[in-house]
């Protein structure tokens, strides 16, 4: 995933993350001191504003000559991913139309800004737009060229140098140059963008952008990090020529304009059929079609996206044959609605594939808000840990397909702390901890009370209606430990607001996590994201502290020692250091008991028609769903044969392949 922000908790299988978004809000105004922000009426136009910004921020935007480039990169090793294996299949055939379903018509065609985080974003940005350098999805730590032909890392100067591919062209034919690169950083850092996350990230992460000529540039990072190439190279540039009218009103002005893309698919005006469908078309003479790592991918000529709002109807539509390929999320849909006895499956017209992937899963679990009454007591939190039967949830709701998350940051390819083991469901032990907190009496309804007459009763809030049944299981089981859970299922807007205002007692939630080398702790576990002034000078809790809203620290956890570790962690320059510090952080979070380990699903399911073909491994290790890397192709001969068989009432061989090459032991 690129470094972008997705404001939604609701689509956990989508891309990117909410992670920084909320935290960065307070930093918004101090990002740049452009006067344009305070006097939008006097906005001089994009070009003038850009020039003014370049002049004002001349220590960030640096312009040098081509000869300086030779000088600066002398002695550096250029990389181009030539030794890395490609992941597209040379047997792939180009052409055909793929029909898919999308849950809603997009609210905008912008990549960024209001409504830009709805599920359709995958087809505008996440799955189709190009970046300079992409992490190899099968080989973490390795990179593949995309818009940059070559890159070189200068550790001493925290700088990554790029040589753009001169062939790269926007879908409207304009070549990509460093002008677009400069514009992109201007755009991401502009307060006019109305997106504090981007302002914050693109200001804090980078300390300089140096342009040498039309195709050579370098990015200097603020901190030395183990994944410098990812931080500098995994960025989507934007077309400067398209944003000529960028200004304070750009959100409205650009709402329905199609951004030219460097990726393989674009949307043509005539293919927008509001509100029922949108079709993506392969860019004519796409510059990347013969490039390594881009060829043998993006095979269908057209991708037709039908809007079907109801998930149950989507399944019906798939089984009827209206759509060709469907990622299946609900276990019930997978095992029952498309059971092997269903005519559409039994006849062989549906292939049901299971693919084991390796990505950081959304961190589903119970986030216990320590700022709420009673929950500040560690014994109560540990009691809740032992009283939450997620094992039963995995068994009953997920039919054994899900596993308990081991730590708050599973899925980065290494175990952050082998000592940390999730606490099992044990009502007896839970009662012991509740007793330590003073809850010794059992009331007539089976709920424990303390001598002050307070009941051991907490409300769990969630915005995931589909996980309501999970909560019902937890509620019934918790009563065995004398703990009462009240359930509150809110709609997305109200619910997210309540969570981030820290008004919930316990939250069932998850943040999407970016595929990267190491987890992020600052957002959810540092004290500055819990309270305005968390501690007094001596490190003790500040009695007058106020809860900080709109951050991702849903637990309101604030421990000075943990903050110190996280600070060190964020400055760690090597992976070894990172891992050592991560182990300590994990231990401290575990001991605090603020996050009850929820579930993760180690695979995804795909159901598709037998004429859609895939590489031998099906997909790459770090894919979120079967569409993400566009490795599939349509086999016209198989399609003809299958349709003929269907017309004649003949069955095809039934297929339900399981791809477990990337299954974690």
């Amino acid at each position: 995933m690129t470094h972008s922000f997705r404001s939604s908790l609701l689509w956990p299988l989508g891309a990117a993350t909410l992670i920084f978004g909320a935290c960065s809000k307070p930093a918004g105004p101090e990002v740049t001191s452009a006067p344009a922000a305070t006097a939008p009426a006097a906005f001089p136009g994009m070009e003038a504003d850009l020039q003014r910004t370049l002049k004002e921020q001349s220590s960030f935007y640096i312009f040098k000559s081509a000869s300086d480039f030779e000088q600066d990169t002398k002695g550096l090793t250029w990389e181009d991913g030539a030794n890395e294996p490609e992941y597209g299949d040379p047997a792939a055939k180009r052409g055909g139309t793929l029909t898919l379903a999308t849950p809603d018509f997009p609210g905008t065609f912008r990549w960024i800004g209001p409504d830009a985080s709805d599920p359709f974003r995958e087809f505008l940005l996440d799955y189709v737009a190009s970046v300079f350098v992409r992490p190899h999805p099968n080989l973490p730590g390795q990179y593949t060229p995309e818009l940059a032909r070559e890159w070189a890392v200068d550790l001493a100067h925290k700088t990554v140098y790029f040589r753009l591919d001169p062939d790269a062209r926007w879908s409207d034919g304009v070549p990509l140059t460093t002008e677009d690169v400069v514009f992109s950083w201007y755009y991401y850092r502009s307060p006019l963008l109305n997106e504090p996350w981007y302002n914050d990230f693109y200001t804090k992460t980078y300390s300089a952008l140096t342009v040498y000529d039309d195709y050579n540039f370098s990015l200097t990072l603020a901190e030395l990090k183990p994944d410098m190439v990812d931080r500098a190279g995994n960025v989507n540039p934007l077309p400067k020529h398209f944003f000529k009218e960028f200004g304070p009103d750009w959100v409205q002005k650009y709402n329905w304009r199609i951004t030219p893309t460097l990726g393989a698919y674009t949307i043509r005006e005539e293919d927008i059929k509001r509100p029922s469908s949108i079709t993506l078309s392969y860019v004519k003479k796409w510059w990347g079609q013969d490039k390594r790592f881009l060829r043998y991918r993006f095979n269908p000529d057209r991708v037709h996206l039908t809007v079907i709002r109801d998930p149950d109807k989507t399944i019906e539509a798939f089984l009827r044959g209206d759509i060709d390929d469907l990622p299946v999320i609900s276990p019930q849909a997978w095992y029952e609605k498309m059971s092997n006895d269903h005519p559409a499956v039994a006849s062989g017209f549906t292939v049901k594939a299971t693919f084991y992937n390796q990505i950081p899963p959304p961190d589903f679990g119970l986030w216990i808000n320590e700022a709420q009454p009673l929950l500040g007591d560690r014994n109560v939190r540990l009691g809740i840990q032992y009283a939450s039967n997620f094992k039963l949830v995995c068994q009953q709701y997920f039919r054994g397909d899900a596993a308990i998350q081991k730590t708050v940051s599973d899925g980065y390819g290494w175990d952050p702390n082998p000592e940390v083991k999730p606490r099992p469901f044990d009502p007896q032990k839970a009662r012991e901890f509740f007793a330590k907190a003073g809850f010794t009496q059992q009331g007539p309804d089976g709920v424990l009370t303390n001598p002050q007459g307070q009941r051991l009763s907490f409300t769990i809030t969630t915005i995931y209606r589909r996980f309501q049944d999970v909560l019902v299981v937890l509620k019934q089981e918790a009563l065995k430990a004398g703990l009462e859970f009240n359930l509150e299922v809110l709609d997305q807007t109200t619910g997210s607001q309540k969570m981030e205002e820290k008004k919930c007692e316990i939250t069932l939630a998850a943040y999407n996590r970016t595929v990267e080398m190491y987890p992020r702790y600052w957002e959810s576990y540092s004290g500055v994201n819990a309270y305005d002034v968390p501690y007094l000078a001596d490190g003790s809790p500040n009695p007058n502290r106020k809860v900080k809203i709109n951050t991702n620290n849903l637990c309101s956890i604030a421990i000075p020692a943990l903050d110190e570790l996280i600070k060190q962690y964020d400055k760690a320059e090597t992976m070894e250091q990172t891992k050592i510090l991560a182990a300590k952080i994990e231990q401290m979070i575990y001991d605090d008991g603020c996050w009850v380990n929820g579930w993760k699903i180690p695979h995804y399911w795909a159901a598709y028609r037998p004429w859609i073909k895939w590489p031998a491994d099906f997909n790459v290790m770090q894919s979120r769903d079967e569409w993400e890397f566009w490795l599939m192709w349509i086999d016209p001969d198989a399609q003809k044969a299958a349709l003929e068989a269907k017309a004649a009432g003949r069955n095809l061989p039934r297929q339900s392949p399981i791809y477990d090459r990337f299954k974690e032991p």
Partner: protein
Amino acid sequence: MELSPQARLQLRRFRSLKRGFGSFLALLFLSLLALLAEVLVSNRALLVRYDGRLYWPSYGAIHPGHDFGLNYPYETDYRALRAQFATAHQGNWVLMPIIPFGPNENCYPGQTFTPRAPDLTLRHYLGTDQINRDILARLLYGFRNSLLFSAGFIVLVYLIGVVVGCAMGYFGGWLDLGMQRIIEIWSLLPFLLVVIIVRSALPTGTSFGLGLLLLVVVLFAWTGMTYYTRSATYREKARDYVAAAQVLGAGPARVLFHHILPNILSILVTFLPFTAAAAIASLTALDYLGFGLPPPMPSWGELLRQGTGNLDAPWIVASAFCALSLVLILITFIGEAIREAFDPKKFMVYR
């Protein structure tokens, strides 16, 4: 209380209308079943005999497992206890209700969540829903929630409707004009949409349950009743007996509640069943859309939603649909009969 001769006549006529009266008795019977739900449908035992003592766990405080020699402090699993006593042969026994499942109970812990078809041997007479809960249990307890909701709805709507409507009709003038405009505006709000918006802004935890939902719905549903009471009060106000009462020195409250109200009662009674039907329908609609009762409270709308999402398990949607249709039809029949019984014209000739 002595009934007036007219009321007695109306009652007699109501009883003579077989379909309406029959529906009334049927609904009464169903309501009685719902009120006694704990005795008929519950995972708590009716009667337990253990070591020479008798226990009645249906109502009141829970009996922890320790009470019956089990090694856990939480509520006894009576079905397991029954099986255990049956094999131990120590003179202990457990008497379970006809349907031994609770409305919120996950009947098969550890087993996959999947709707189970009706099965007489397992005593799931209408099957189970998608999270292993007995549908009949949820229907019955859901019915009780609907009844409670509609009872509360009727009381509140009538209270507001009668007070506001009577005041408008009796005092007339600017009060009437002003209130009419307010009511017109208020009643133009799209009911379900506004209720959903208000509902989603309010806390919705289990502890708020029925009461809060009731208030929100009543807030946007009280206007209908005012039209009828207002016009009826207007009509009655012009009659001589009202003038007579006023001449005798009766104040507005006395005139309204002692003289006018008894005379417009027939209108109020006639609307009663339809108001109840409206209450049940709106609760079901809200639940269906997910803005009604908080989970896991049993409700018909929630069952309908589950059912339409699981058409491959037709017993869910069929149960909820049949139950809802049956109750609404019964209420409609009763409503028709009441209207006919209160109609001063005994015979009607259609031309």
